[in-house]
């Protein structure tokens, strides 16, 4: 009799707990379902926006609009067929000259050796390319010429 009563109580308690759990799960499931729906709606909305922006981009990217803008602001003309070459037709790259290093050398570095090894990267590069390293005077001359300050001949 007593056991039956305890069992009854346990069963009642279990029922209450399970009802609570089911209620919670159901509530959560509803919430998640709403969340899924909300996200789906948002995705659809974002897709529509992407679509509309894509259309707007296409409108701004119209070739005739680009041509009009290029003619108005850039002053470019059409490419000449001669500008269209294959890679093997290109001339060899010219030796790279560091103008700033040249200017610095010509301004303050009279007493310092210009093409001193090993800390002159330009000289190193030039040597690595198998070319003659220009002397101090050469580099100063070229820099002055590039800047349009007359030739070294008149200054000396």
């Amino acid at each position, binding site marked *: 009799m007593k056991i039956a009563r305890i069992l009854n109580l346990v069963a009642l308690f279990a029922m209450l707990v399970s009802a609570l759990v089911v209620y919670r799960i159901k509530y959560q499931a509803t919430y998640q379902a709403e969340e899924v729906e909300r996200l789906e709606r948002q995705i659809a909305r974002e897709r*529509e926006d992407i*679509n*509309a922006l*894509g*259309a*707007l*981009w*296409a*409108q701004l*990217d*119209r*070739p*005739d609009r680009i*041509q009009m803008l290029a003619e108005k602001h850039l002053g470019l003309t*059409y*490419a000449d*067929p*001669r500008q*269209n070459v*294959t890679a093997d037709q290109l001339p060899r790259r010219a030796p790279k000259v560091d103008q700033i290093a040249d200017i610095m050398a010509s301004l303050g570095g009279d007493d310092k050796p210009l093409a001193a090894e090993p800390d002159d990267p330009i000289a190193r590069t030039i040597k690595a390319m198998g070319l003659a390293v220009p002397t101090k005077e050469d580099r100063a001359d070229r820099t002055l010429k590039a800047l349009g300050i007359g030739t070294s001949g008149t200054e000396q």
Partner: protein
Amino acid sequence: MKRSSGPRRLSTLRVRLAAAGFLAVFLAIGGKLILLGALPDPQNKARFDAEAALATRRPDIYDRDGRLLATDIRAASIFAEPNRMIDPDEAAEEIAAVLPDINAKALHESFSNKKSGFVWVRREVTPKQQREVHRLGIPGIDFLNEQRRIYPNGDLVSHAIGSVNIDNQGIAGFEKYLDRVHDVSTDGKTRPKPVEMSLDLVVQQAVRDELAKGLAKYKAKAASGLVMNVNTGEVIAFVSLPDYDPNVPADALKPNNINRLSVGVYEMGSTFKALTLAMALDSGKVKLTDRFDARQPLSYGGFKIHDFHATHRILNVPEVFVHSSNIGTARIAMEVGVDGHKAFLKKMGLLDRLQTELPESASPIVPKNWGTLNTITISFGHGLSVTPLQTLAATDALVNGGYLMKPTFIKRTHEEAMKEAKRVIKPETVAKMRYLMRLNAQIGSARQADIPGYRVGGKTGTAEKVINGRYSNDKVMCAFTAIFPSDKPEYSLLVMIDEPQGIPETHGFHTSGWNAAPMTGKIVARIAPLLGVVPDFNPPPNDPPGVAAASLVVNGE
């Protein structure tokens, strides 16, 4: 007894009364429910129909490089429910104030019908208009989202793409084709697979720009340009000026805006000589070195055929082509004969209606009783009217290795094209045609189209237009067909200009070599780099195939 029975009877009566009352209420509700479920609802039917129509979604259309040509975007439409309106007159006035171009009177009338449950106020409004109407806060005015077709490139691609009506159904061009192949979704959710057209938007724009400049320069009535890939039959550019903005579909119906490339049929003039020569060379009855007498006009059945640039001498086949000799071409066609000529043009698809994806197409105008005189005139492009599109497709077959391919507006590969291609010309003839086309650009009438590096080959054609039943001298239709690079053709081009005028720069001439040819040259110079054609400034000499160069002396202009 009597005293106690009274109240009891009364209470029984009360209970019965209450039961009867509840029964009546529930019966009423139940009855209404049955009515709602069983009977159609006329007030809301219009609205449900409208919602169903809005669900149509069309595929996005891209060009061959993935540039957007057409898409659906969401647009709001305003509708009214007059049965829910409090003050229809005021509502109509307020809406008319926000949407000034609306018919206020019609709005009044439709709002005053209290029975009606759904009327459109305005379809596809801008977001700004939607906000303004929303802000009015009129009861009984609401919005529906629907898909609206937009063409971001406007008039750049008009005839090829066609247009749709307000319910998003294709009514012209490629759009109508999409409806025919059921590429549209009607459930409103799934987005159909995008479609890639064969067009190249940048090439299309370059062609259109040069045509518009030519149209203005030569004061012509109309101009059209067509670029095709000769090895796949793809249409790369399709321009017919004047054109229209597909966002305003009503303009498509204006007669002057017709699609001149596949709906217009024309006598193509001397550009047809390429076909005549290919026919004769392919038949084996005529060799490159054969000579034809062009000293005197050709008389046949009371008609006299003259040459426009008369040479008054005996010409070999390349000279006939380079001088565009009508007499020589007619004599060459007569070697093949009427039946052979007819069979050849039939084989090239020039006597039947050409049907591509575009629903708009016209049948050629073929003479009913085709005699020798017809063969003579058709040999140089008079007396047979065909569409420019089918002419270029036939010309492609002369130079691409001999395969006739049906033009298409959908991107495809060479292999796919070869599955349906039909061999119509021998490879030896193809080599000769490439030689002749190139030669004409070197020493003939097509010199103004010879852009250095791109080995352009071409043929001019000036057809006199028929005005009041007679060929007119000053009203002409100029055409130019070109191929490049002619040693191994990749692209072909057809430019037509309707009624160009002679201007000082052309020394008053209005023939094709002075307008269509230089226009073609400008187009080639612009589009060849876009299409990835590599220029070659030291091409191999253009020697006649199968003949020792010394035995064939060609004197140019």
